[in-house]
């Protein structure tokens, strides 16, 4: 194994291979900040270039695009409160308030460093997973996957701070919205009202931009002035971010490992990885009062996780030929084009190529962090511009990004409708993240629920994996209730 790793390192350090990796990284960084245009578009864009390439060079280039997208999409999330990609949605919660307090440099530098270490740890997890992942992943049946999704949903709902009922209601609404369109297990359409646009369901990009970006814009426009309400020295902010990383090094390791684990489960993706880690960091924190108002831990946790999940995502892709996400499906297509057969045999026949992917992941993260740090200072100055001056350009870009989902007028109508829903939820104090997570998990939960109920009847509830997850859910619930009761007791004592 070590020989294969060293051989792969030699391959990737060849100037031509390194140049292809750098091209992928640059394309990934350039596309990351554009809302609605993410790593998937970048990989699709570069896929034709892989024809005729050496497999190692082609894979390095595509891994370069996918690996760094979650690093550069942080720019609009922190500076404008607009998610550049699905992985940066959770970063908005604390990154954007920090930018408004004049600490954009601190938030960005902490985020880039967390992303870098997250990516490196993700690559390490992928390396360590090679001999042990196969039996573990194969032990997960449909009932376990269903329980895992429900557990994730309950955790996010219950972690919705002081309003768990509202969080769970929002998650239920997300699940319901996720059922719009053609039913996967019966030949009918649901809640489409004969509108052709809805037959394929609501696009995730449209929902997330409407829900998060538009209400933020209305708020900033109503407040007036620039995004940053306080001016600060960018230089000190930058070093503060680095110090934050040193201070919270344990968070980086913990959330990177969790993120990589979530990435290894097909279908969960960077958004779920980031949100679950955001929820978890809140739950574990002693002082939770700053979360949602600008706590650097709320930036470090999701950013570590969303980059690490790329490493985890490669586990089912490379080891079983099962793509964990749409971007991994493109990577699989590229592997087929390059004449590489992914799956268990790849480990036996071409282990050095697997290590090329791992090294590419590590180098891409290092390169992306360097480039983003150079760009950090000039881009952060955007937060000092009067928002009314840049609003038309940003809104037009959001509209263009949303329109790329299906290139149908319905994208624009839905964008406005979800903007209205997001504003209403924000004003009512109802957390929006659980809705998004419910929406993302809906197709998976529906498929797993149907398969589980029709194939296992009630017997699935007695499976050891399911029982373990039910116990885990009960433990999370009990722990949350116990903490609430303890806080209440303490408050009564103080009174």
């Amino acid at each position, binding site marked *: 194994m070590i020989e294969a790793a060293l051989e792969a390192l030699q391959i990737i350090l060849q100037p031509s291979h390194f140049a292809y990796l750098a091209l992928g990284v640059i394309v990934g960084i350039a596309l990351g900040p554009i809302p609605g245009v993410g790593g998937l578009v970048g990989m699709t864009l570069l896929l034709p270039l892989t024809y005729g390439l050496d497999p190692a060079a082609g894979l390095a280039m595509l891994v370069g695009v996918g690996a760094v997208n979650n690093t550069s999409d942080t720019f609009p999330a922190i500076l404008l409160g607009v998610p550049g990609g699905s992985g940066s949605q959770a970063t908005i919660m604390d990154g954007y308030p920090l930018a408004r307090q004049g600490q954009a440099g601190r938030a960005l530098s902490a985020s880039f460093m967390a992303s870098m270490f997250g990516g490196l740890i993700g690559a390490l997890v992928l390396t360590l997973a090679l001999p042990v992942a196969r039996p573990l992943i194969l032990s997960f049946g449909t009932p376990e996957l269903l329980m895992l999704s429900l557990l994730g949903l309950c955790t996010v709902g219950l972690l919705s701070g002081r309003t768990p009922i509202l969080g769970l209601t929002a998650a239920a609404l997300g699940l319901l919205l996720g059922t719009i369109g053609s039913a996967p297990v019966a030949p009918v359409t649901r809640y489409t009202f004969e509108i052709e646009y809805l037959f394929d369901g609501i696009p995730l990009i449209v929902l997330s931009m409407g829900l998060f970006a538009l209400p933020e814009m209305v708020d900033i426009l109503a407040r007036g002035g620039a995004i940053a309400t306080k001016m600060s020295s960018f230089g000190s902010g930058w070093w503060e971010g680095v110090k934050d990383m040193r201070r919270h090094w344990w968070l980086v390791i913990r959330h990177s490992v969790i993120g990589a684990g979530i990435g290894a489960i097909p279908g969960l993706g960077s958004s779920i990885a980031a949100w679950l880690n955001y929820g978890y960091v809140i739950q574990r924190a002693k002082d939770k009062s700053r*979360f949602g108002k600008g706590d650097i831990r709320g930036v470090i946790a999701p950013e570590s996780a969303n980059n690490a999940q790329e490493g985890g995502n490669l586990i089912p892709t490379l080891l079983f030929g099962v793509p964990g996400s749409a971007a991994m499906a493109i990577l699989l297509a590229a592997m087929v084009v390059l004449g590489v057969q992914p799956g268990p045999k790849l480990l036996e026949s071409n282990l050095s190529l697997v290590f090329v992917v791992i090294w590419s992941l590590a180098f891409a993260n290092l390169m992306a962090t360097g480039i983003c740090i150079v760009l950090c200072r000039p881009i952060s100055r955007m937060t000092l511009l009067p928002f009314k001056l840049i609003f038309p350009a940003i809104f037009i870009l959001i509209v263009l990004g949303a329109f790329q989902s299906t290139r149908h007028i319905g994208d624009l109508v839905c964008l406005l409708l979800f903007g209205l829903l997001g504003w209403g939820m924000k004003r009512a104090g109802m957390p929006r993240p659980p809705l998004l997570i419910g929406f993302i998990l809906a197709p998976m939960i529906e498929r797993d629920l149907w398969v589980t109920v029709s194939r296992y009847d009630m017997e699935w509830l007695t499976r050891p994996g399911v029982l373990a997850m039910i116990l885990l859910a009960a433990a999370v619930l009990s722990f949350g209730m116990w903490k609430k009761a303890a806080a209440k007791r303490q408050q009564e004592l103080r009174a």
Partner: protein
Amino acid sequence: MNATPTPAAAANAPQPAASPFAGFLVGFLAFLALVFIAAIVLAWPMPPGARLMPLFAACTGLGLSLFAIIRLLIGQWREAQQAGEGEASYDIASESEPIDLLRYGGWMLVYIVMLLLLGFIVSTVVFAAAFLRIERKSSWLAIALTCLLTLGLAHLLSAALSVQWPHGLLLAF
């Protein structure tokens, strides 16, 4: 030593102001409850495989929203809010009023309607110019620069990434 307040003292103690959004929240939850009821009614005639998930989501949502409304109406919410003080907020707090939504949401709506009628280029120029002139009193030079930069960026995205623009009913560009 901390003393536990008597019921009478607790009753006379100044109560914290109710959340300014509590009324809005009740209305919003009632709206969601209606949405969940409509979803159940619409899902009922579907085949079993198709209705399983919508019914699961809508029934859960209806139960939770009604429970939240009842809690709000019987006044336990304030207590819950107090108990939760110091906890994390899972979302960014709202800073705008309905009038702001009408004003700035109106601009967004006007732009989308213009796009559907006049196409991308004309709508973008008219929207950017009108917004900057009316809302910010920008100079014509700043307006021209903003329009040029925005259209330039859109052209770049279109050429490099095949990003498509919406076509209008009256103008196709």
